[in-house]
């Protein structure tokens, strides 16, 4: 009773308790209904450990992650670079904007069948889908970040005779950096979405194929364990992006004071 809990550990304990209660509720439901599609918690945990030791699991992830990583990184690289360029040059904007606006206004999922017909279901085609899902948001977020770089700083740097190239490096890029990080965060979410949509709805490969196999053969503990591993994957990406965000925002003023 007299243990002095810090606010931080109280919060953590509450979160852990909440998750524990959720698992307990799940287990209670599972043991009462005996449904084939609501497996026992321990069965799922066992399946999860089994999967970590199986080659099927890792092969599926390799198939899924390779196009994801390629599409994700290239979308961020291309989106950020083109976004910076377009934010700077009205001419570049006129050239590029119609394409991005087009892809922004039509749900990308409608293109998937066409892409598969045109390019097949190989690595290149799957990379392209992830890329297309992510690149549009990365581009728009970056471009608007550049467009809203503090004009007074641009005027100031011009008054001191800073040349175009160095103005870009010293004012535009650091000024747009918070937006670039937002672009990376949005793009990461979109890339995951692209990956899932493609594998579940269209091309049965990798983790998506495995999900289908487990579902169709009623192996629900394995199915749940696989979904849990996807959650771990998503969480890892999220933590990485958060780290990046915090790194960039460190020392910058915010509406709520200063980031530390």
């Amino acid at each position: 009773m007299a243990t002095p809990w810090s606010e931080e550990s109280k919060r953590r304990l509450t979160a852990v308790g909440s998750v524990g209660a959720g698992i307990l509720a799940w287990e209670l439901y599972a043991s009462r209904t005996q449904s084939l599609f609501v497996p026992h918690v321990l069965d799922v945990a066992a399946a999860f450990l089994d999967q970590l030791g199986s080659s099927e699991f890792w092969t599926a992830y390799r198939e899924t992650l390779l196009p994801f990583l390629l599409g994700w990184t290239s979308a961020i690289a291309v989106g950020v670079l083109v976004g910076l360029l377009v934010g700077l040059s009205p001419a570049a904007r006129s050239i590029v904007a119609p394409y991005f606006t087009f892809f922004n206004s039509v749900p990308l999922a409608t293109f998937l069948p066409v892409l598969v017909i045109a390019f097949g279901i190989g690595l290149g085609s799957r990379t392209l889908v992830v890329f297309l899902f992510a690149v549009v948001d990365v581009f728009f977020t970056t471009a608007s970040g550049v467009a809203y770089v503090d004009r007074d700083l641009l005027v100031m740097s011009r008054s001191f005779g800073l040349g175009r190239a160095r103005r870009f490096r010293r004012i535009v890029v650091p000024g747009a950096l918070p937006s670039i990080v937002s672009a990376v965060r949005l793009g990461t979410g979109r890339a995951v979405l692209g990956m899932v949509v493609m594998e579940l709805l269209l091309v049965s490969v990798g983790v998506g194929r495995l999900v289908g196999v487990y579902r169709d053969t009623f192996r629900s503990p394995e199915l749940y364990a696989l979904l849990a591993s996807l959650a771990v994957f998503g969480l890892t990406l999220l933590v990485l992006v958060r780290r990046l965000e915090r790194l960039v925002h460190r020392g910058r003023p915010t509406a709520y004071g200063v980031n530390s």
Partner: protein
Amino acid sequence: MIELDDIGMTFTRSGKHFDALDGVSFRVEKGGFTSIVGPSGCGKTTLLKVIARLARPTRGELRIGGRAVATPGRDRAVVFQNFALLPWADVLTNAAFGLEARGVGRAEREEIARRHLARVGLTGFERHFPHQLSGGMQQRVGIARALAVEPDILLMDEPFGSLDALTRKVMQEDLAALWDAEADRTAVMVTHSMDEAVLLSDSVVLMNTRPGRVEDVVVVPFDRPRTAEVVRSAEYRDFAGYLWERLEQMHREDLARTVPT
């Protein structure tokens, strides 16, 4: 010497023409401190931008030292109303930014910047970030940044406009003291405070609105430094009062000309 010869600037917005400046001619002697004062909307900030060549006039010519000028140059440095400091860079980097823009190496520019930060009373704050400083201190960084490039002409756009009254007064006195130590540097300051203009200037350019134009150029007949004794004298107060009245009158005339639509 800065010469403005029949400077005019017309903006066109949705088909309508608007004369921000028209027929502006005056000269600023080398080594002099000139203030540009006028009611809001008289184009005084635009005029300062023209001298900095951050804006291009549609008519007329700007000459500095007898030569027509069309670009920002090494001979001029600007102090901005909203300070325009890089929020992601520390005080030292900010103060050295003008030198960096001009290609001065790191060690040298930081040494020079330190010296100028010391002049504005910011020694010890080199590694602070702008948001950790008060408005007055931020503008001190802005002034140090401008002085560090050793400009022939210092251009100031309402440098104390966003500061509270007390900070403003202290900054004015410190700037006056800094200025008295500068032998032949020329300064042009835009302000809407006549007291500030009279305290700091050798001459005051009175501007009027619609179109933005020069109403009068008044020489301030008081010696430097303008000690508390001078400022308290009846002559000084009469002079400042006279200019305030003219300014107020212009403002009222402008209001009277405003027809509600």
